[in-house]
């Protein structure tokens, strides 16, 4: 397989209700990514596009409908769709388009416009549940996360006020992100604990917001990347894995699907001791407890101990293992597929030393990004390095 680098990235603001159509959001991000590495559509051999459920944009066959915004006109085009895991997966898809030798330069775009769903995007999730055993009860996603969070907290005896530190840190980090929707430099644990209870133990500020936005990256084969930039960021490892389709049969305390995806990516990257060899982590953080779950699945913390990275400062932007220096989904926003690709873009900017006020000190050399989704059972993991 050929070596593959990320050579450019672009990102729209993440907002609650965008005026732009899904196509226009995708186009804005794609244009920024192309301009960042001074390429035009003539240089792009193929396009990969990620968007999550069609229901959000409200258009059946949404990938094809939005394709022109992603630059797919008269190009080989493929849509990736693994729910919340889509954003990170779309970069894996871009990677194998190039690594395989099929294409030298690929544009990868991820877009989500959740505000089209009316009155609230949560209702789109009703139809992901089992028709017979679950849908008659009219469940929503919050139930499942509340049930999982309660089981996780109870198993390890974790406190709400400790888990709230995750939300606080991410929202504070996001205050330094120009595209962020919920950056709040002065937010406190009390603010989180005093926010509205949605489904105990989940409260308003434990959750990332419904958002609109798009992100794009340009990926290139080694010989092209080296010609175009002095600072290519290499895709060193990729992994993905799917657990049982039934959440009732999953381990609610430990995400096996993340572990298996991470082990696949680490093996490819030659990583034996991830806690020493990974310098920045961008785990998927739609809920604060979920970050802890994912850090444990990524083998960056022992089971039940991920919270300690937040309590002792390790996860801070200037700590030994900065976690979500971008501000993550909790702070920047959560336009599903775009939020995952934002994590890849963040590692690109961080490893090039171009993250501005968000820059992690100490010239980080390697990072890991992860997303989670489908019916809450996929792990998608990418290791990037310079």
């Amino acid at each position, binding site marked *: 397989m050929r070596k593959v680098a990320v050579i450019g990235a672009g990102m729209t603001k993440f907002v*609650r*209700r*965008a*005026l732009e159509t899904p196509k226009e959001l995708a186009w804005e991000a794609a244009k920024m990514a192309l301009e960042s590495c001074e390429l035009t559509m003539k240089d792009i051999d193929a396009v990969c596009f990620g968007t999550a459920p069609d*229901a959000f944009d*409200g258009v*059946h066959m949404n990938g094809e409908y939005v394709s022109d915004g992603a630059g797919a006109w008269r190009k080989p085009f493929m849509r990736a769709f693994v729910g919340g895991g889509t954003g990170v997966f779309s970069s894996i898809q871009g990677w194998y388009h190039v690594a395989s030798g099929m294409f030298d330069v690929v544009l990868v775009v991820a877009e989500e416009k959740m505000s089209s769903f*009316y*009155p*609230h995007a*949560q*209702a789109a999730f*009703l139809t992901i549940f089992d*028709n*017979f*055993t*679950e849908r*008659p*009860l*009219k*469940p*929503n996603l*919050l*139930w499942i996360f*509340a*049930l*999982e969070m*309660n*089981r996780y907290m*109870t198993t390890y005896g974790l406190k709400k006020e400790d888990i709230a530190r995750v939300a606080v840190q991410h929202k504070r980090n996001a205050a330094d992100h120009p595209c962020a929707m919920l950056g709040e430099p002065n937010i406190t644990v009390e603010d989180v604990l005093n*926010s*509205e*209870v*949605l*489904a*105990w*133990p*989940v409260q*308003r500020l434990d959750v990332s917001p*419904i958002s609109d936005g798009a992100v794009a990256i340009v990926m290139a084969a080694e010989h092209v990347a080296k010609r175009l930039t002095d600072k290519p960021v290499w895709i060193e490892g990729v992994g993905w894995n799917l657990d*049982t*389709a*039934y959440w*009732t*049969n999953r381990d*609610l305390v430990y995400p096996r699907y993340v572990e298996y995806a991470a082990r696949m990516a680490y093996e490819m990257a030659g990583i034996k001791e991830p806690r020493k060899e990974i310098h920045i982590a961008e785990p998927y953080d739609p809920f604060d407890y979920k970050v802890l779950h994912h850090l444990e699945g990524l083998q960056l913390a022992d089971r039940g101990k991920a919270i300690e990275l937040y309590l002792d400062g390790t996860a801070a932007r200037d700590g030994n293992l900065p976690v979500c220096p971008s501000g993550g989904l909790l702070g920047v926003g959560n336009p599903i597929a775009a939020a995952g690709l934002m994590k890849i873009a963040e590692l690109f900017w961080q490893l090039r030393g171009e993250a501005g006020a968000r820059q992690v000190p100490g010239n980080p050399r390697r990072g890991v990004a992860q997303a989670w989704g489908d019916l809450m059972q996929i792990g998608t993991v990418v290791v990037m390095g310079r």
Partner: protein
Amino acid sequence: MSLLQPDPQAPSVWRDNLPVTSRYTYGLAGERFFRILKDEGKIIGSICAACGATYVPARAFCERCMAELTEWTDVGLVGELHTFTVLFVDMEGRPLDEPELVGFVRFGDGGILHKLDADPDDLQIGMKMEAVLKPKAERIGAITDILGFRPVT
């Protein structure tokens, strides 16, 4: 503040919908599971001896080895409370008049998601919970034939 936030600054929009109605067959395993729930008031699972897995509600095949599951078992009406939540808002983020309890009750390697009839202060993860069924004459062969679960007294 709720999930539903009217926004006076929102851009102008065209309203339309995706009209879709579906009819879902219960399938090979579901047909039998729900018929037994309706007629006999039992919760049944299916067993894969090779994988050591008991699927509840019963399934037609084992997802691990893809074998057909022919061994069915009555798992009783009492399971273990694996986790629970107290709901304060509805699907659209509006506050509920009364908080509702939802739990996941484990049977075998799976289990059942359902409403709980209990005082939240009395609930503890790991406690035994019993299915409360509708009277036989009212059962139609649906998960709602189970009204919910309550602590075993």
